C-alpha cells in the first residue's frame, strides 16, 4: 500500500514538474546579436511599443504570434500582466490615433524561431523545448 502511495506521489510530482517545464518560455534573439540578457521589463516595453531599444541602446524589433495562439495568451499574462483582449484595446488606441502599431505577427513557433534566426535585430519568444543553436535565449519566463 505504501509503495502504491509512493508511486502515486512520484507520478504526481513528475506530472507537475513536466507541465511546469512545458509552460516555460524563452525570450530569444539572433545569435549574432551582442545581447546576452534582457529583463522582463525591457521585453514588456518592447512588445507594448513604449520603446524600440533596450536600456543599453540596442535596437530590437519584436515579432509576435497571431491571435488565438496559446503561447501568446501566456506571454501577455506573464510578461505584460494583462489578458489579450485588453492588449487589443490598448493597441487599437495607439493604431487608430497614429501613435504606433503592434508587432508584426507569424503563425507558429517554427516561423518565429526561423524569423529570429534570420534577422539580427529580431526578438521573439518560443517554448523552451524548441531551443537550439539557431537562436539565443536571453530570458526564461516561468
Amino acid at each position, binding site marked *: 500500500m505504501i509503495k502504491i502511495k509512493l508511486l502515486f506521489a512520484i507520478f504526481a510530482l513528475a506530472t507537475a514538474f513536466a507541465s511546469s517545464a512545458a509552460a516555460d518560455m524563452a525570450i530569444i534573439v539572433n545569435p549574432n546579436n551582442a545581447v546576452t540578457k534582457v529583463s522582463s521589463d525591457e521585453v514588456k516595453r518592447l512588445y507594448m511599443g*513604449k*520603446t*524600440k*531599444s533596450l536600456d543599453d541602446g540596442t535596437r530590437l524589433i519584436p515579432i509576435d504570434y497571431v*491571435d488565438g495562439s496559446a503561447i501568446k495568451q501566456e506571454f501577455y499574462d506573464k510578461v505584460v*500582466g494583462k489578458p*489579450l*483582449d*485588453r*492588449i*487589443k*484595446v490598448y493597441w*487599437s*488606441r495607439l*493604431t*487608430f*490615433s*497614429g*501613435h504606433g*502599431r503592434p508587432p508584426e505577427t507569424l503563425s507558429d513557433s517554427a516561423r518565429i524561431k526561423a524569423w529570429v534566426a534570420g534577422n539580427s535585430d529580431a526578438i521573439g519568444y518560443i517554448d523552451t523545448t524548441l531551443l537550439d543553436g539557431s537562436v539565443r535565449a536571453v530570458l526564461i519566463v516561468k
Partner: protein
Amino acid sequence: MSRWRLPLLLSTALVGGGATAAELKWDGFFTSTYSITNTKSTYRDIVHDDGSFDDSRFGLHVVSDIHPLWRLEAQLFAAGYEDNYATRLDWGFASFHLSERLNLKFGKLKYPNNLVSEYYDVGLAYPWIRPPHEYYSLEEPSASITYESFSGASAIINRRSGDWDLVAQPFFGEVELAESDANISKFIGIKLSASNDLTELQASVAQGRINAEGHELDDQTKRIASLGMHTEWGSLVNYLEYAVTTFSDSEEARTKAGYITLGYHFGHTMPHITYAGFDQESGWGQQSVTVGVKQMLNPSTALKLEMQRITPQLNPEAGAEMASGLFMDVPEKTRVNAFSIAIDVVF
C-alpha cells in the same frame, strides 16, 4: 484643399515610395450602433424616438515606413451621421522619428488634448458606446476645440522617469470646418501626460480664434484647460476628466464640463457607470447618468449595451423652440431615457 486631394497625394506617395518600395499595412475599425429615446426628441442630431443607426461608423487606417526615420500614415472615415457615410480623410501625416525621445508630425492631425480625442470614433478602445457627450461634443461648450483634424505640426517629446513615461506634445495649426466657411486660426496648444502600467494622467491647454462670419462667436478666442486621469488598477477601471472653456468676449459662454466613469473587469465582461455634465454661465447645461456593459466576444470584437438617463437644461440664448441640453429640440419629458446597443470590431 479638396476632400480628396490630400488622400490622393498620400496614396501616390505611399504606393510610389521610391527606392524603398515601402510596404503598405492596413488596419480598420467598425462600429454598428442602434439607439432610441423614450420621448419625442432628437438627441445630438443622431438619436431619435423612432430609433436610429446613424451613430454607426467605419475607419480604414494605412501606414507605410518609407524610410527608417520617416513614416506616412492616414485614416479614412465614414459615419452614418455625416452625409450618409460619405468617406473623408480623418487624418493623414508624415512623421519624422528623430530619436527615441523626439517625434515630429506634419500634415492633417487629430486634436490631441483630452484622454480619448485622438481615437474618439474607435468604439473598441473605450468602455462606452460613445465617450460622454457632455465633455466630447461638437457644441460650443465642449472641452474639444474641434473634432475636425487640424492642418499643422506637432512634436512628441518623450522622457522616462522611473516607472513613468512622460510626454509633452505641443501643436499648432489651423482648422477648416467642413461644409462651412468657418475656420479656427492661430490654433495652438500642448498636452502633458504621465503614464505607467496602471495610471495615465493628462493636463492640457489649447486656444484658437474662431472665424465664422455672422456667428455670435465670430472673431472670439476659445480657450480650454483640462485635466484627465485614466486608471486600470487590477480589474478596476476609472476615467475622470474636467475642463473649463472660455471665450474672449463672452463671459456667458464660460463652461465647466466633466465626467467620471467607474468600471470593473469580470473576466471578459465590464459593467460601468458614468456621471457626466456641462454647465454654462448662461444657464445652458446637461447632466446624464449612463449604465452600460462591455462584453468582449473575442480580442477584436465587443458587444455593448447602454442605458442613459439625460437631464437637459434649456439654453435661454437659443429660445424656447431651440436646443435644450444637447437635444436639437425641447423634449416632451424633462428627463429622457436613451437605450443603445453596439458592436465594435477592429481588424
